[in-house]
C-alpha cells in the first residue's frame, strides 16, 4: 500500500543529503519541509510588498510608488500571502508532515501526486514575481473583479490567472491526497474518533478545497477567455454580467478563509493540550463544530457582496448563515479555554503564540459577526475596517499559529530546540507590531478611509503612521526568528525524541524521524490527548 515502503531506503533519491529538499522527493516529511521553507520565502516577498504599502501610506499623498505600481503591489501582496504562504504552509507543510504520523502510515496515499502538487508551487510563485518585470503585474486586486481586470494590462492579468490556476490545481491534488490518506490509510484498528484533531481539521479543509477550488478555476478560465478571446461572460459592454463573477469568485474565496483557518484550529488543538498537560476538552463537539463550519462555510459567500446590488432576501439569508458560523467557532474557543483550565501550563514561545491567536481571533471574530449584519456592513464594506478584520483572522489567527507550530514542531523536524529568549523577543515584536499595525485600521475604515488607495484625507495621517510603525515592528520581528532558526539548527540544545513529553504519534519515534517514520510497526495511539490518563515518559 504505502508506495515508498516498496523502495529500499538506499534507493530513495538523495537520502540523507540536503539535496533531497531540492528533489522530486516522495517522502512526506521532505515534502512538508519543502512546503514550509518555500512558503516562508514567499512570506518574506509578501512582507516586502506589505512594507511598500505601509511606506506609501505613511504620508497622505501618493508619493512613493507610481499609482500603477501601487496597485500591482497590493494585488501581489494579497495573492502571495494567501496562495503561496498561508494556504501552502498551513495545509501543505503541516498536513504533509503530520497526517501520515497521525493516521499511523509510512507516507501519504499518493506520494508522487504529493511531489507533483508541491512542485507546481515554485513555478507559479516565480511567474507571479516575474510578471513585475515583464510589463507589470496584475493591478486589479487579488479579487480581480471584472470589468477592471479586463481593462488593466492584459499580460500581467493573464500571468496572474495562470499562476492562480496552477496554485489551485496544486491545492486540489493536495486535498484529494489528504482525504484519501485520512480515510483509507489509517493503521488497522485506529478509529476516526481517535484521530488527533488536526486530521479532522484537514479532512474538513480538504473537502472545502475539493468542492470549491474547481469553481474558482472555471471562473478564472472564463475570465481569461474574456481577456484573450473577447468573449463576454463578465463584460457588460457586450452583454456580460460583472456581478456573476463576484458570486463565482466568492464561492471559492470565502471557503478559502476556512481553508486558511480550519487547519490552524487543528494545529492549536494539538499544541494547547501538550503544553498545558490536559486532555483536549470536548473532543466530540470539536469534531462536529469543524463539520458545521465546513457546511456553513459553503453558504455564506454573498456577505462579500452586500453593496453589489444583491436583493434583500439574499442579504438576509447570508447575514443569518454568516452569523451562525459564530456558534461552532465559539464552541471551539470555549473548549480551548477549558483545555487550559486546571492545567499545568508552560508559557513557552509556542504557547505564547497560541494564546495570542485566541486573543486576536476573538477580536477578528467579533468584527466578523458585526460585518455579517447587512446594515453594519454597508458603511464599512471595502474600507480599512475590513482590511483590519481579515488581517486579525488570517495574520492574528493563522500566521500566529504557523509560528506557534514552528516552535512546537521544530525539535521534531531538526532534533534541536529553538532558543526561548529569542522566541519571546520574536513573540513580543510580532504581537505588539501586529496590533499597532491593524488595530487603528478599524477606526480608519469607520471614519472614511477606503481600502486599496495610495492617498487619503490628511485627517487620517496619525493613525496611518501608527499603523506603519506597527508594520515596521512586524518586519523587525522576522530577524530574531531567522537568527533563531539558523542558529538553533546547528547550535540549539539537543531535544531528545520527545522534549514536550507529548502523546500524539509523531513524538513516539526518533527526532528527526527515520525515512519510514518508525523503525518498527506504527504505534497504536488510542488516546492522543490522554494527559493524566496514560503514563508519559518523563
Amino acid at each position, binding site marked *: 500500500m504505502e508506495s515508498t515502503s516498496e523502495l529500499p531506503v538506499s534507493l530513495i533519491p538523495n537520502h540523507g543529503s540536503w539535496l533531497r529538499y531540492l528533489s522530486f522527493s516522495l517522502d512526506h516529511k521532505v515534502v512538508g519541509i519543502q512546503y514550509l521553507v518555500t512558503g516562508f520565502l514567499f512570506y518574506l516577498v509578501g512582507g516586502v510588498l506589505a512594507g511598500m504599502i505601509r511606506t506609501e501610506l505613511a504620508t497622505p499623498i*501618493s508619493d512613493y510608488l507610481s499609482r*500603477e505600481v501601487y496597485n500591482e503591489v497590493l494585488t501581489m501582496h494579497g495573492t502571495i500571502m494567501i496562495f503561496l504562504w498561508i494556504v501552502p504552509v498551513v495545509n501543505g507543510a503541516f498536513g504533509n508532515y503530520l497526517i501520515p504520523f497521525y493516521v499511523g502510515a509510512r507516507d501519504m496515499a499518493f506520494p508522487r501526486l504529493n511531489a507533483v502538487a508541491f512542485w507546481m508551487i515554485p513555478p507559479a510563485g516565480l511567474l507571479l514575481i516575474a510578471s513585475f518585470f515583464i510589463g507589470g503585474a496584475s*493591478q486589479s486586486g487579488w479579487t480581480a*473583479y471584472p*470589468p*477592471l481586470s479586463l481593462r*488593466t494590462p492584459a499580460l500581467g492579468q493573464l500571468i496572474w490567472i495562470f499562476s492562480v490556476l496552477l496554485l489551485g490545481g496544486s491545492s486540489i491534488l493536495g486535498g484529494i491526497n489528504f482525504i484519501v490518506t485520512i480515510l483509507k490509510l489509517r493503521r488497522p484498528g485506529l478509529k476516526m474518533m481517535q484521530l488527533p484533531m488536526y486530521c479532522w481539521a484537514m479532512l474538513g479543509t480538504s473537502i472545502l478545497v475539493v468542492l470549491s477550488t474547481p469553481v474558482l478555476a472555471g471562473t478564472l478560465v472564463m475570465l481569461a477567455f474574456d481577456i484573450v478571446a473577447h468573449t463576454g461572460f463578465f463584460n*457588460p*459592454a457586450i452583454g456580460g454580467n*460583472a456581478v456573476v463573477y463576484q458570486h463565482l469568485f466568492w464561492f471559492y474565496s470565502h471557503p478559502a478563509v476556512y481553508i486558511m483557518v480550519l487547519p490552524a484550529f487543528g494545529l492549536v488543538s494539538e499544541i494547547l493540550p501538550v503544553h*498545558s*498537560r*490536559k*486532555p483536549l476538552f*470536548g*473532543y*466530540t*463537539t470539536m469534531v462536529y463544530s469543524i463539520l458545521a463550519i465546513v457546511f456553513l462555510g459553503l453558504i455564506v459567500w454573498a456577505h462579500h457582496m452586500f*453593496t*453589489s*446590488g444583491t*436583493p*434583500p432576501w439574499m*442579504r438576509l439569508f447570508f447575514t*443569518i448563515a454568516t*452569523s451562525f458560523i459564530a456558534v461552532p467557532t*465559539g*464552541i471551539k*474557543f*470555549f473548549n480551548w479555554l*477549558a483545555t*487550559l483550565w*486546571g492545567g*499545568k*501550563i508552560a508559557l513557552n514561545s509556542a504557547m505564547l503564540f497560541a*494564546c495570542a491567536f485566541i*486573543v486576536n481571533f*476573538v477580536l477578528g471574530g467579533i468584527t466578523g*459577526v*458585526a460585518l455579517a449584519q*447587512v*446594515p*453594519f456592513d*454597508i*458603511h464599512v*464594506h*471595502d*474600507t480599512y475596517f475590513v482590511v483590519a478584520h481579515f488581517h486579525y483572522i488570517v495574520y492574528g489567527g493563522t500566521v500566529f499559529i504557523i509560528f506557534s507550530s514552528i516552535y512546537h514542531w521544530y525539535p521534531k523536524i531538526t532534533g534541536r530546540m529553538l532558543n526561548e529568549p529569542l522566541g519571546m523577543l520574536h513573540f513580543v515584536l510580532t504581537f505588539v507590531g501586529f496590533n499597532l499595525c491593524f488595530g487603528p485600521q478599524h*477606526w480608519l475604515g*469607520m*471614519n*472614511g478611509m*477606503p481600502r*486599496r*488607495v495610495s492617498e487619503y*484625507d490628511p485627517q487620517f495621517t496619525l493613525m496611518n503612521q501608527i499603523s506603519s510603525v506597527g508594520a515596521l515592528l512586524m518586519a523587525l520581528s522576522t530577524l530574531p526568528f531567522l537568527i533563531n532558526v539558523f542558529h538553533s539548527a546547528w547550535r540549539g540544545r539537543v531535544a531528545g525524541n520527545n522534549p514536550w513529553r507529548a502523546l500524539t504519534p509523531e513524538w513516539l519515534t526518533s527526532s528527526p524521524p527515520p525515512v519510514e517514520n518508525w523503525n518498527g510497526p506504527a504505534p497504536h495511539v488510542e488516546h492522543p*490527548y490522554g*494527559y*493524566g*490518563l496514560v503514563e508519559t515518559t518523563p
Partner: protein
Amino acid sequence: MPSGHFLVSVGLILLGLLVGQRVDMLPVQASVNAPVYDELFRVLFSIGTMLFLGICGLLVYSLVRFRRQPGDFGDGAAIEGNLSLEIVWTAIPAVVVLFVGLYSYNIYERMGGMAPLADHSVMHAMPATDPGSGDRVWGGISTVSGETADLTVDVTALQFAFIFHYPEGNITTGELHVPEGERVELRMKANDVIHAFWVPQFRIKQDIIPGQPTVLTFTANRPGTYPIICAELCGPYHGGMRTSVVVHDRGAFDQWLTKNTLPVA
C-alpha cells in the same frame, strides 16, 4: 458556581454596556440613516466588549493561575469534557447571534432595507414603498425610479469621477448638492468599471455597476459639506476619486438650483 463568578459576569456586562454606550468612533451623523446605524453600532460594540474582555480575562487568569511550577512534571486534571458546560457555551453564542440577527433585521427594516426592488419578481407581490416613511433609505438594483423621492439625480461614475445630472433644471455638476430633510434618489450607472458611492457621514454605500443600474436613496439632515468617496478599486487613481456632497437648507438649495438651471436646449 461561586458568587465571585456571578459578580464578575455582572461587572463585565455593566462594563460592556458602559463602554458601548459611551463609545464615540464614528463620523458626524448627517443623514436620517446615521443615528439608526450608530444605535446598531453601540449595541454590537457593547456585546463585543463583553465577549472580548470575558474571553481574554479568562485566558489571562488561566495562564497565571495554572502556570506550571518549576520542576513539576505532572499532568493537569484529566477532564475530557463536560456535557452541561458544552451545552451552555453552545447556547450562549447561539442566543447572542440570534439576538444580534433579529436586532439587525429590525435596524435593516427601519433603514428601508426590505423595500421592494424593481427588477425583482417579488416587487409585484408587495406594496410599493410607503410614501409616508421618509426615512426609507436603501440602495438596490432598480431600473425604474420610485415615485416617493423629492429630488432625483442621475449619477454617472467613470474613471475617475462622479458626474451628477439634475433632470429638474438640466444641471450637470461634479459636486452633489441636496436639500436638507428631503428624500433624494440617486439613479446610478457606471461607464467603465465598478465604482462605489460612499458618504461616511450618511453611513450608506452602494456599488455602481456597469450594465446594471443601481438606485440609492437617502435623506440628509445636517447642512454642511461631506466627502463622496469611491470605495471599489477602479484603477490607478481610485484613491483620488472623491468629490463632495453639499447639504443646503431649503432656501439655499433653491437658490443654487435657480442659479445653475440651464434653459432646455
